[in-house]
């Protein structure tokens, strides 16, 4: 059979895109899913897309999930590519998670903790059995959630407050750039090493959940372990405040839902200071405990900076390795660019291998002739 | 000129001019003193041994005088080809590193620290020549073979990776790599440490032979007085970061003056 070289393809591209749109729609006898259905009913997918897409907009994230046919990596990419075009008004004040309206809050450090353990909406303790009722037509009847006798306190103290009177936790200090009011922005500046804490946390917050999960897991399996303990994980809404130049004082411009995790880990003594527990910090948009916990563990692991001139022993301790490879949009693009044609480079390599083979054949022939 | 000539090399220095001069070299780590107030001069072709037990500050001193660790106080001057006697730490980082690659050698105790483990033995030995600007494969290959022969390595293994060699063999590759470019001064940090006694003896013999044949100046740090006796012309004895005694090797070892040196020497004799 004869081959036709695949070059060109204006029409091929257009057609492929049309086919993609058809496949996205699926069987047309089934009603099209609405973006607001995605937003309400696939809300954890939406949360992950907002977190790694670093753009807090539930509607756009839902649209991205729909448009990407549920491919979360693709949805994150779509949201990032949109976000980069947005005008930038300024930088908000740091959110205060102490003033979070808590929906869920648990600590593994103490049985009872000031503010109480609040389970909230969680997959924990569910039995992972497929619920065929959800597949049957119509809605599953919802069982009423019981209301507590009293309301939760307006402010639930965080793990720092709990340990404060004993001064047992290491102090979180702003990095070398303490005096800068504007934190490092990965989307505007390239990474540099050694990375300050703001660069590290931003990178991890945008980082791929799966990558961070596996890294965190590797530390638990002895690849640079730091004996983490979940000091606290909390989910809830916080106010976002902004200081407009013309006003000079902060005003609330909205609320966002965030998940925060504080990991406590084995103590470190720094210089002349008394021994204290080290900490790792994780924060994401929306509800995402797996990611937040992984982030906190990796943040803690990255505090094990090797002494000058030494190289880190474990992947999770290696700042350059972790930060350069955690971004899923960068990684996915580069891995998949291997689909692009490479025939120019391949032709060059073919020539090289053929020449090596020719020489090999000559050597073989000479050897045989000699024998 | 062949880069491997072992014959006397012309030096643009008066014969009595030092190749290295340390003045009041002090290194502190916070409240801890690495070494304090060390001064000495080293002349071309001379081998200086620095002895003392671990923690005496000899490795800190070696790192300072080889330009690898900036001292807290004091000067380290080296007779560079370009500028003559110059404080290594007054040079820009780029110039200092250039002097280190082109005019100095450093033999680490652990050959892994001084070799590229993923690169063949031959390329490890040829690299310093390439750093000097040699761009002729054939001539570098020849020099490499000469040097591997000189350190008594099996030439058939020239393209093997160092990790496939024994510890003693790796050390020989490291020595060849540090001598191939005809440096004027080579630092050695426990060059025979971590090797079996019989391997040590052969390597020492080789080192002595190579050093004696050339006009190379060497500073060797060791806790092993037998190594010092075999290699060094002069000794500096260190304790708690200070030099407690200096002198000709035989003089120091046969008639030690300082109580600590006496202890060191008697400890050896008891074995």
């Amino acid at each position: 059979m004869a081959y036709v070289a695949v070059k060109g393809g204006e029409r091929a591209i257009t057609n492929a895109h049309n086919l993609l749109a058809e496949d996205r729609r699926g069987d047309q006898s089934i009603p099209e899913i609405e973006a607001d259905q995605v937003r309400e009913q696939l809300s954890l997918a939406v949360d992950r897309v907002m977190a790694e897409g670093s753009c807090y907009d539930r509607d756009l994230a839902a649209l991205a999930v729909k448009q990407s046919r549920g491919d979360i990596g693709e949805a994150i990419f779509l949201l990032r590519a949109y976000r980069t075009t947005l005008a930038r008004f300024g930088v908000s004040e740091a959110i205060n998670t102490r003033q979070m309206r808590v929906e869920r809050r648990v600590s593994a450090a103490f049985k009872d903790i000031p503010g109480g353990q609040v389970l909230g909406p969680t997959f924990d303790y569910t039995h992972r059995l497929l619920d065929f009722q959800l597949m049957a037509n119509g809605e599953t009847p919802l069982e009423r959630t019981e209301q507590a006798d009293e309301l939760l306190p307006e402010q639930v103290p965080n793990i720092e407050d709990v340990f404060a009177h004993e001064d047992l936790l290491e102090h979180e200090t702003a990095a070398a750039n303490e005096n800068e009011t504007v934190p490092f922005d990965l989307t505007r500046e390239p990474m540099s090493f050694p990375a300050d804490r703001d660069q590290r946390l931003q990178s991890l917050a945008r980082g791929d959940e799966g990558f961070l999960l596996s890294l965190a897991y590797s530390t638990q399996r002895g690849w640079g372990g730091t004996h983490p303990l979940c000091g606290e994980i909390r989910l809830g809404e916080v106010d976002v405040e902004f200081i407009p130049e013309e006003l000079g004082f902060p005003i609330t411009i909205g609320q966002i839902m965030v998940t925060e995790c504080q990991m406590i880990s084995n103590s470190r003594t720094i210089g002349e200071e008394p021994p204290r527990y080290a900490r790792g910090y994780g924060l994401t948009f929306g509800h995402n405990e797996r990611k937040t916990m992984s982030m906190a563990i990796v943040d803690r692991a990255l505090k094990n900076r090797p002494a000058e001139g030494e190289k880190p022993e474990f992947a999770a301790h290696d700042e350059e390795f972790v930060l350069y490879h955690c971004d899923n949009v960068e990684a996915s693009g580069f891995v998949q660019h291997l689909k692009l044609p490479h025939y120019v480079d391949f032709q060059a390599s073919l020539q090289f291998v053929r020449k090596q083979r020719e020489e090999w054949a000559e050597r073989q022939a000479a050897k045989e002739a000699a024998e | 000129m062949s880069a491997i000539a072992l014959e006397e090399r012309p030096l643009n220095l008066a014969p009595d001019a030092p190749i290295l001069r340390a003045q009041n070299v002090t290194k502190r780590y916070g409240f801890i003193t690495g070494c304090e107030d060390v001064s000495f001069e080293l002349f071309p072709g001379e081998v200086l041994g620095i002895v003392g037990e671990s923690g005496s500050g000899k490795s800190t001193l070696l790192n300072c005088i080889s330009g690898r660790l900036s001292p807290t106080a004091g000067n380290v001057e080296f007779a560079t080809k370009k500028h003559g006697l110059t404080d290594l730490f007054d040079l820009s980082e780029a110039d200092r590193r250039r002097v280190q690659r082109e005019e100095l050698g450093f033999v680490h105790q652990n050959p892994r620290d001084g070799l590229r483990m993923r690169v063949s033995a031959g390329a490890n030995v040829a690299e310093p020549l390439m750093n000097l600007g040699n761009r002729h494969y054939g001539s570098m290959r020849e020099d490499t073979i000469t040097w591997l022969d000189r350190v008594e390595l099996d030439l058939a293994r020239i393209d093997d990776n160092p990790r496939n060699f024994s510890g003693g063999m790796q050390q020989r590759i490291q020595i060849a790599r540090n001598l191939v470019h005809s440096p004027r001064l080579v630092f050695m940090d426990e060059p025979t440490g971590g090797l079996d006694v019989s391997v040590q003896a052969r390597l020492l013999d080789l080192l002595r032979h190579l050093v004696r044949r050339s006009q190379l100046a060497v500073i060797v740090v060791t806790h092993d007085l037998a190594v010092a006796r075999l290699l060094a012309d002069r000794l500096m004895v260190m304790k708690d970061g200070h030099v407690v005694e200096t002198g000709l090797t035989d003089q120091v070892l046969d008639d030690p003056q300082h109580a600590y040196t006496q202890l060191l020497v008697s400890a050896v004799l008891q074995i």
Partner: protein
Amino acid sequence: MTEHQTMSANAGPGLADYNFAYLDEQTKRMIRRAILKAIAVPGYQVPFGSREMPVPYGWGTGGIQITASLIGPNDTFKCIDQGADDTTNAVSIRHFFAKVGGVATTEHTGDATIIQSRHRIPEKPLVEGQIMVFQVPQPEPLRNLEARETETRAMHAYEEYGLQYVRLYENISTFGRIAATAGYPVMVDDRYVMSPSPIPKFDNPKLHNSPALHLFGAGREKRIYAVPPFTKVESLGFEDYPFEVQTWDEVCGLCGAKHTYMDEVVLDDDNNRMFVCSDSDYCADRRAQGHRGPHAGHELTEIAEDVSKNQEVMA
């Protein structure tokens, strides 16, 4: 340059909110500053605040950002991939600029003011005033030898290129020749070792003393570097194993050229193949001048001509 260029009338639907050439003017300014620095220090990799683009990393985000920051309404844009204008990714990028800038596009090397390329430099010699923009997957020539950026930056700063030469030395010990065939490292202006991007080494000599400006953009790695016009660019090698370019025994099946970089086209299951110019515009030009190769009239010619007709209709 006007402060806010707006979208041209040709812009596609739903794009009215985007600035001319997609990037906002502040971002373009930042990229132009990085480009100026890159031109001032030939071969040095300048870090820049690479933006997230609507195409994936590894598919030309660096090149697109450079083009977007330089292109104006009077420019004529050419985009090639593997030497050809009609490969999918080149088509896609050319459309992107036609869509967000409404700029004129061309397939003719001689007519272009800006040529964005992946993996090739056109055969037709570039002239003064032209800008080549390369898409770069990995800007660091030493990366395969040393994984750490902190290390490689120091190696460039201190001009410690021993490791690079060690690699060439080992190639010769192992293969009897230098193995790099594409992305063959060069020394720029006697100072920086630079990756010319994965162009075949056949194209390396075109960089030396070129009258055109060559800009290299790595979006994912966030680096821009440059070879300014009339700059010394030397492919690394040894005196007794000098750098050499690829040659072919075959001639181009379509135009009969002997001196160009060839693509290999498999014709059937019997191992019959023909070689054709990788630079499709150059090949078409030669055919228009009456040159004929042994496979003249092959259907590949028709496809190429069909595509270019198609584009005229679309433009």
